[in-house]
């Protein structure tokens, strides 16, 4: 579904991605781990071009993401994204957060958008929050709303950029639960995460990045319990 070839990204003279090749299959859940500064978030943000790659190509289905101009907005509609800091729209109610883009971008009617939104709120267990503003929600609730907001565009793949890193420990579980259910329902997901337990349990494939390269990838259980590369071993010995 997503094909990445020779992806490079530099910030000024600092090369963060030094040639990444990867393929994400439809329905696959891929967890990306690695030390901070390894380029994993930049990699994810290049997939929908929130970061502009400096080299290489990204194909999403039949589209060339890297060269897309006007089609980029259409491509992005199909690639939902969840951020570390939620980035909910604070000047709108929860319901408006979920309906504004379907209505304004896809031209969905208000009734239809609200119907879809309500269903999603039910899925993430926050139906009763439909009319409140985001600032009255807890971190875990905010992130569940953010997931619902991305899903409201009915994307074909979901990108998660450290979705639980900004949460208090007791709220991590509720967000991971929502993500796990999403995975079970067959959503294609790319997740940059520090939650090794979650990666082991939910991901189909684990990618370990370090220094702008993919160092190792494979079945999460195998990589986590029997890493092949020295750098993977070193990283895992610190976090596990």
């Amino acid at each position, binding site marked *: 579904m997503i094909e990445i070839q020779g992806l490079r990204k530099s910030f000024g003279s600092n090369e963060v991605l030094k040639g990444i090749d990867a393929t994400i299959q439809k329905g696959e859940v891929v967890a990306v781990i690695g030390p901070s500064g390894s380029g994993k978030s930049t990699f994810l943000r290049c997939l929908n071009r929130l970061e502009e790659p400096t080299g290489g190509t990204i194909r999403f289905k039949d589209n060339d993401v890297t060269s897309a101009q006007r089609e980029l907005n259409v491509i992005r509609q199909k690639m939902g*994204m969840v*951020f570390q800091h939620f*980035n909910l*729209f604070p000047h709108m109610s929860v319901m408006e957060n979920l309906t*504004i*883009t379907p209505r*304004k971008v896809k031209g969905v009617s208000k009734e239809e958008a609200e119907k879809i939104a309500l269903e999603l709120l039910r899925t993430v267990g926050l139906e009763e929050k439909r009319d409140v503003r985001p600032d009255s929600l807890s971190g875990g609730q905010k992130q569940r709303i953010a997931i619902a907001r991305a899903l409201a565009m009915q994307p074909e793949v979901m990108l998660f950029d450290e979705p639980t890193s900004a949460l208090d420990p007791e709220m991590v579980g509720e967000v991971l639960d929502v993500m796990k259910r999403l995975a079970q329902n067959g959503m294609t997901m790319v997740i940059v995460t520090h939650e090794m337990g979650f990666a082991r349990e939910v991901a189909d494939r684990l990618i370990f990045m370090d220094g702008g390269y993919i160092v190792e990838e494979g079945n999460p259980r195998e990589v986590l319990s029997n890493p092949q590369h020295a750098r993977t071993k070193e990283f895992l010995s610190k976090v596990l």
Partner: protein
Amino acid sequence: MNLDFSFFGEYSSYFLDGAWMTLKLSVFGVLFGTLFGILFALMRLSRIWIVKFIASAYIEIIRGTPMLVQILIIHYGLTNFGINLPAFMSGVVALTINSAAYMAEVFRAGIQAIDKGQTEAARSLGMSRGMAMRLIVLPQAFRNMLPAIGNELIVIIKDSSLVSVIGIAELLYNSRAVQSVTYLPMEPLLVAAAVYFVMTFTLSQLLNLLERRLGKR
């Protein structure tokens, strides 16, 4: 101290007409100033260097030169190039180009103060750059900018008194007319000052109210 306001009954229409003219100048100045201010702010945030340069140069030049000089250039100087604006028009143009420069800075600061994550979230959902600006960034920025905008509106009302030099019969001009027919040096100016104060104070109270309203939501 001996003040005599007995002239007021006879000349009240001068002050009323003047205040009305001041109000008209200010409203037009604010309206166009805001529109062009947003435009220049967006230009200044543009990624195209020439667009950015034009906006920056405009803002620096207008802010760095006295408004009185600008008024005289627009009304008298431009006649040199065959541009002969009626006084009211010259006044509105001068107020507009001035408030646009100051408003642009207010808007730019307001837009830049909004967390980048807001734009990223909007873009990641598939909104265009303009849509993200209009639906997500500007409404939030506007709320933060309200005090600064209020300041600017008050400045425009006060600065509109400068256009009296090109013979627009606004509040100050008419007050000076009353001064000269009554031979009273102080009282007409005090009335003018009081009327200016009523206008600016009313405005600042309205803005406080609006701020509280928006804050509550």
